[in-house]
């Protein structure tokens, strides 16, 4: 009953959000600032691969002549960019970043959390490394590895790893210390200690870090694509390469709205998966 009421409220609020926006856009009547809801839906349709065919637009969709496809939309359609395609590319990069970055971050966090000595030596270096924004060294990676996929993937890996260190570290150091001591007294060592004591004890803290890492991975991926990439959501939004300053061309707000909505939906979906999986993995923690 409570859940039903909550989801009803949720739905009402969502509809209200759309309603308020539609009304606001109509009142302002500046499609270059707040594009009407219909135009956003149209842009979404076009980017999903149906709707506006550039050549046929004239005869089949007569009403399009009021607002012909914007330069940004035209470029995107000419390049064969679709929303699902761009989203798939970005999702792939995010998943790669998580797949490589999470183990790295967890390993470093465990190393620093498990041994006081290692922590003393490594922590200052970690703090230095953490302070450098991952998007800032894209060009440096390019100098080493050329214009390739590497300079989009490495910043994501780096951002994820650096984010994941702290929760693992605190989980292992603060939460697990007393369990580790107890387990050691009972003779547990090595792999047993790691998988049966250290990781489970740090689990809940790591789950929080994981959810945050996912958000960071998405942001870094979009940022890297906005700066230097020929595909993906960041490219769809800015039309390719902030550093090549193509931002000078006026962008189409409808396209940007569609992109942002798609990113929000994708981020939400991935977070929901992490939440469900994480709750399973740490269900014992809530007893």
């Amino acid at each position, binding site marked *: 009953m409570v859940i039903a009421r909550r989801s009803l*409220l949720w739905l009402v609020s969502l509809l209200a959000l759309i309603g308020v926006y539609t009304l606001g856009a109509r009142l302002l009547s500046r499609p270059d600032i707040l594009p009407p809801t219909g135009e956003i839906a149209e842009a979404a349709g076009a980017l999903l691969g149906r709707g506006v065919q550039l050549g046929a637009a004239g005869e089949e969709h007569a009403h399009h002549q009021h607002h012909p496809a914007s330069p940004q939309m035209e470029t995107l359609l000419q390049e064969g960019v679709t929303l699902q395609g761009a989203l798939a590319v970005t999702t792939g990069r995010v998943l790669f970043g998580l797949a490589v970055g999470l183990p790295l971050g967890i390993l470093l966090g465990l190393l620093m959390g498990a041994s006081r000595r290692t922590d003393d030596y490594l922590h200052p270096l970690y703090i230095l490394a953490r302070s450098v924004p991952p*998007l800032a060294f894209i060009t440096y990676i390019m100098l080493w590895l050329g214009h390739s996929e590497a300079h989009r993937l490495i910043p994501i890996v780096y951002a994820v790893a650096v984010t994941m260190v702290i929760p693992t570290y605190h989980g292992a150091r603060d939460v697990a210390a007393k369990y580790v001591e107890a387990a050691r007294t009972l003779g547990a060592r090595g792999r047993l200690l790691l998988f049966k004591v250290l990781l489970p004890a740090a689990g809940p803290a790591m789950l929080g870090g994981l959810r945050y890492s996912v958000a960071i991975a998405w942001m870094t991926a979009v940022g890297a694509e906005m700066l230097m990439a020929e595909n993906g959501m960041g490219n769809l939004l800015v039309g390719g390469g902030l550093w090549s300053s193509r931002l000078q061309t006026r962008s189409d707000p409808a396209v940007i709205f569609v992109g942002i909505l798609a990113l929000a939906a994708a981020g939400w979906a991935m977070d929901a998966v992490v939440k469900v999986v994480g709750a399973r993995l740490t269900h014992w923690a809530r007893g």
Partner: protein
Amino acid sequence: MSWVRARRAAIGLLGFAALYLLASEIGQSRLPDRIWMGAHYVENVKLLPTWRALVEEGTFLIQSNILVDSIAVSTRRVVLGLLLGSVVGILLGLLTGAASRLEALADPWVTFFRFTPALALLPLYVIWFGYGESSKVLLIATNVAVVTFLGAHQGVRGVRRVYLDAAAALGADRWLTFRKVILPAAFPSILASFRVATGLAWVTIVVAELINAQMPSLGYLLALAGAYPRVPNMMIGLATIGALVLVFDLLALLLNAWATRWMERAA
């Protein structure tokens, strides 16, 4: 911090510096200095500049006032964004956290903003607020607001029921409860999120300052260094941003310690 820990920290840092020294001296003759940039070759690129080259570049950047001016401009943007974003974020978070009826209503809006990578708003902000100062500051502010909002919201939500019941039983009205129970209890969560937000603000500026990029600014300094490419300049830029992130993080930590000094702490 004990003596042993300080010594180990110094050894760690010096060890890294020495490793870099070794790598850059060896690399100087072995690494390629002609680099294919996609369209043309660039000559005389030092992939690992020596410490000497870094110091020379650093002195030049400081003496020519480029670095100092860039730091001033970028820091001003970050501070403005942080102030604006955290005030809005924390107020909204406290409001939605305290009024449970609002929560279900606000949820879709919150979800939307929470999962939108704030950098994705950049082209939209350019359309809305132009190429000037306001887009940059507002982009940072948005990023900060989202994070601090979640921190404040979860902080208020996490207040123990017992405290609220106790306050109610003792006859505290809503405002007093909010001021003396909810706010102090939510403070650690809010400040933790603020600390995260300071880091994000500096991540954002690297990209935000490419909107109508102009000197002086750290974001454009990096972009220019990358375009030439001039590696020592790039590294000084990275180190400067890193140092500023460290300073801001330290300030946030101090604020945290000062604001929660009433709490009992284990060691």
